[in-house]
């Protein structure tokens, strides 16, 4: 029932039909928005921050924002909690967060709630307790993503005897969710033997792990990798045993490889976490501050493209760096940022 009542359901789609909604007393803009980022030392995070700044600079968004303050605190959980406390103490209206831990923010969420500050978490979101009234979470459904990749592999693999699963960083909730979704999809066909290696979402690590697995286990019928897809693809190419279907992340370079080798048998599916999630999060924050009702758990559509559907300049960019994450826009949310907009954001 929630869906019908919430604002812009096209963009802000509830993750679960019966999920909770959030509606705050309307405030008057322009607003002071903060972003408590954690780690910044990888391409995804840098692109995400660039996307945020590019989106916030768009005229109709910019006029709703009085101040946008961004800090990156590194990987330490306590530092990120402190950054949020600082923002709360400094009287910001809403805080965006890409959390270092799914569980560590319960206390600071309570404090935010007391202070009437809206929290919008995205990408690495929280495990909710159910009591939060000031929290909106924006994410792609990680479990669904894993499941989607599993289903795609199931439908694409020629034979279905053995599959290689390349996992992410151990102990991380995204890794857990995608893994569970993937396994749920694969469980439909109990005959498949799944081999698991850890790739840490890193190209070098993933490539080594896949190369070793290929050398020791012979060939696989398909691979699902949560990240480091370029490295994984190179491992398959280096093994010289021919291409197999690979379901991977959203790196531009992976998509370029798929396009280049689709005819040789590299059947690839690419779906991944979009750095533009941050723009959806900002949009949601502004809407909620305006007093609109939003689902508490917003499931952003998963930007998926496979060897049949990839389009140059739209879902992949031949002239742009491999490390760019190609899924950079969400048309349903009127977030239409191309590679140019994002890469130009540092000009200011």
């Amino acid at each position, binding site marked *: 029932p929630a869906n019908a009542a919430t604002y812009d359901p096209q963009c802000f789609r509830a993750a679960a039909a019966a999920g909770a909604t959030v509606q705050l007393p309307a405030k008057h803009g322009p607003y002071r928005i903060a972003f408590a*980022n954690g*780690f*910044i*030392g990888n391409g995804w995070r*840098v692109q995400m*921050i660039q996307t945020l*700044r590019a989106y916030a600079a768009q005229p109709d968004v910019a006029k709703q924002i009085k101040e946008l*303050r*961004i*800090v*990156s*605190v*590194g*990987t*330490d*959980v*306590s*530092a990120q*909690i*402190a*950054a949020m*406390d*600082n923002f*709360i*103490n*400094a*009287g910001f209206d809403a805080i965006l967060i890409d959390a*270092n*831990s*799914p*569980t*560590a*923010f*319960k*206390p600071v969420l*309570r404090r935010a709630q007391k202070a009437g500050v809206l929290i919008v978490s995205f990408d690495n979101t929280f*495990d909710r307790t159910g009591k939060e009234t000031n929290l909106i979470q924006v994410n792609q459904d990680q479990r669904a993503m894993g499941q989607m990749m599993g289903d795609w592999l199931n439908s694409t693999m020629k034979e279905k005897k053995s599959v290689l699963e390349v996992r992410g960083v*151990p*102990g*991380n*909730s995204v890794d*857990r969710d995608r893994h569970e979704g993937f396994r749920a999809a694969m469980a439909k066909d109990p005959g498949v033997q799944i081999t698991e290696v850890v790739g840490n979402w890193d190209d070098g690590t993933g490539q080594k792990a896949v190369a070793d697995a290929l050398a020791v286990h012979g060939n696989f019928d398909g691979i699902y990798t949560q990240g480091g897809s370029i490295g994984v693809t190179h491992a398959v190419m280096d093994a010289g045993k021919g291409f197999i279907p690979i379901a991977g992340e959203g790196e531009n370079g992976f998509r370029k490889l798929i396009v280049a080798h689709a005819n040789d048998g590299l059947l690839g599916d690419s779906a991944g976490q979009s750095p533009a999630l941050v723009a959806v999060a900002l949009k949601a924050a502004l809407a909620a501050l305006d007093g609109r009702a939003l689902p508490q758990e917003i499931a952003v559509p998963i930007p998926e493209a496979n060897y049949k559907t990839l389009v140059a300049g739209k879902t992949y960019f031949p002239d742009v760096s491999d490390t760019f994450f190609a899924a950079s826009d969400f048309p349903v949310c009127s977030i239409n940022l191309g590679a140019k907009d994002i890469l130009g954001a*540092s000009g200011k």
Partner: protein
Amino acid sequence: MNGSDIRLFARHNAIPLLAGAVFAAMFVLYLALQPRGVTVGTLVTASNKGVLLALIACAQTLPVLTGGIDLSVGAIAVLANCLASTLLGGSGLSLVGGVAATLAAGALAGGFNAVAVVWGRLQPIIATLATSSIFYGISLLLRPDPGGDINDDFASALTGDIHGIPTTLIILLAVLLLFWLPFRRTLIGRGVYAVGSAEAAAYMSGVRIARSKACAYVLSGVLASLAGLLLTLIAESAQASAIQAGDLTLNAIAAVVIGGTSLFGGIGGLVGSVIGAFILRTIGDLLFVLAASPLWQPLFQGLILLAAVSLGAIPLLRNRNRLESFR
């Protein structure tokens, strides 16, 4: 204290005093730039994250004073974090038991390091590198997925304030006053310095070397687990994160050096390391109040860290006897 006492004290504690002044300046600047003025909340926030790193830095200081190093302090804190997250759900006695068990686990981990370094005669830097891997593995076993159930009244009380004074700051002061000051004046405590300064001479003099060294590692484990406990209370949960462990370990080493403890052992102390930890934490706070451009922040942080650790080089640059700068 008369004049010459003060002069001697200043000469022997030049770096910690300098670091203290730097910290005071940074923190005053931070408070002055607070958009909404200084509140108890501001202080509690600064204290909570500062004390966490300060405790790890204290844990790191003891082995460093013996001339060793403990690269597993972060992993022990994470291990304690994971363990505590399963033990601190109850109330009353079970809470006390949970705290005790966590600290005991820290002591055990520290004891393992002690055995390796003291009786196994392994080089501390590499032995603790190996044990940190082991401790992290155990953390993953204890908590394969992030989570945990913590008594939130207990957590709020310990991460809040008492009459406007942050509770964590009181805990830190208690560690310094009730543990460190007396410890330095025990035979074992002085042994820690003696061993770090000149191990062979200490042995010849009849200092109980093994006992002092072992004690340094065990106490380091306890302090690290105290930090892990605090992390559990701040986050009301746990995550077996190798990154977090590495981050804490390296920051702690930086804090120790900034605080004037010599990495060669024998010189320094917990107070300096605490100041060093607070300096490191204030860097991030300053970037916040100064609203630095997000892409420039990591570079600023790195440069300030580099500058801060270079403070320790000033006395050496002044040194006119060139020999002194070669070991």
